[in-house]
C-alpha cells in the first residue's frame, strides 16, 4: 500500500550546509531501502518561526515528498526525533487530498466540455470586458 506523505521539518538555523546535505541523503537512503521513493526535496530556506521552538526564533524549512508505507514514515519520524539539529517536524498524508482535487478538476473539466455553448461566449466575453478596463 503506497501512500504519499509530505514530511516537513525544521532544522536549527546555524546548521552547516554540508550537514544538511548529509542529513537529507541519509533520509533519502532510508526511504529507498524501505521500498519507498523520494518524489521531491524542497528547501524552503530560512524562515521566521511563529513562536520560539527550543529557544530558536528562526529555522530552515525542508519539505520532503515521499511515497511509501506507514512503517517507513514511522522510521523516518524516529530518525528525525533523534537527530539533534531537527527542532520540529510534521508529516501529512497528501494522496487522498490529491485524489479529491483531481476528481474535482475532472468534474469541472467535464462540465465545461458538456456545455460548450455557454462556455465559449463567456470566455469570449471576458477578454472583451477586461480590455476596456
Amino acid at each position, binding site marked *: 500500500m503506497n501512500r504519499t506523505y509530505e514530511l*516537513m521539518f*525544521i532544522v536549527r538555523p546555524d546548521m552547516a550546509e554540508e550537514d544538511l546535505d548529509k542529513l537529507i541523503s541519509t533520509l533519502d537512503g532510508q526511504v529507498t531501502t524501505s521500498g519507498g521513493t523520494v518524489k521531491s526535496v524542497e528547501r524552503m530556506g530560512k*524562515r521566521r*518561526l*511563529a*513562536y520560539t*521552538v527550543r529557544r530558536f526564533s528562526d*529555522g530552515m*524549512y525542508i*519539505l520532503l515528498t515521499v511515497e511509501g508505507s506507514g512503517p517507513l514514515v514511522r522510521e523516518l519520524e524516529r530518525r528525525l526525533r533523534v537527530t539533534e539539529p531537527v527542532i*520540529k*517536524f*510534521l508529516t*501529512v498524508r497528501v494522496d487522498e*487530498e490529491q485524489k479529491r*482535487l483531481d476528481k*474535482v*478538476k475532472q468534474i469541472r473539466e467535464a462540465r465545461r466540455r458538456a456545455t460548450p455553448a455557454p462556455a465559449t461566449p463567456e470566455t469570449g466575453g471576458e477578454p472583451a470586458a477586461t480590455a476596456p478596463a
Partner: protein
Amino acid sequence: MAEETNTSAAANGPAETPRSETARGEGPRGAPRGPRPTGPGGREGGRKYFRRKKVCKFCIEKIESINYKDVRLLAQFVAESGKIVPRRLTGVCTPHQRRLSTAIKQARNIALLPFAGRA
C-alpha cells in the same frame, strides 16, 4: 407579510400614508436580520446601515486546495491574537471552514502560524 399589507394599504388610501410609513418602519426593526435583503431594504432609503451578504471566498474564487503551507491564505482567517476567525464573521461555508481549520492547525504545529498572538 406586514410589508405587503402596508403597501396595499398605501395603494388603496393615500390619506393613510403616514400611518403606513410608521408601520413599515417597524417591519425591519422587528426582524433586523431577516433573510429578505431584497424586500424592504431596497425601497427604504432611511436605512442606517446595510449588511452585505457574506460569501465564501473559497467557493467564489474556486480555491480548491487549502494547504497548510499557504501561510498567506491562512493568515486571512486568523485573528491578530492567533485565533481562527469564526464562520459567522468571515462567511466561509462549512466544508471549507472545516478544511481551513485543519490546515491552520497543521500550520501551527510546524510553526508557520502562532498558537497565540505575538508575545
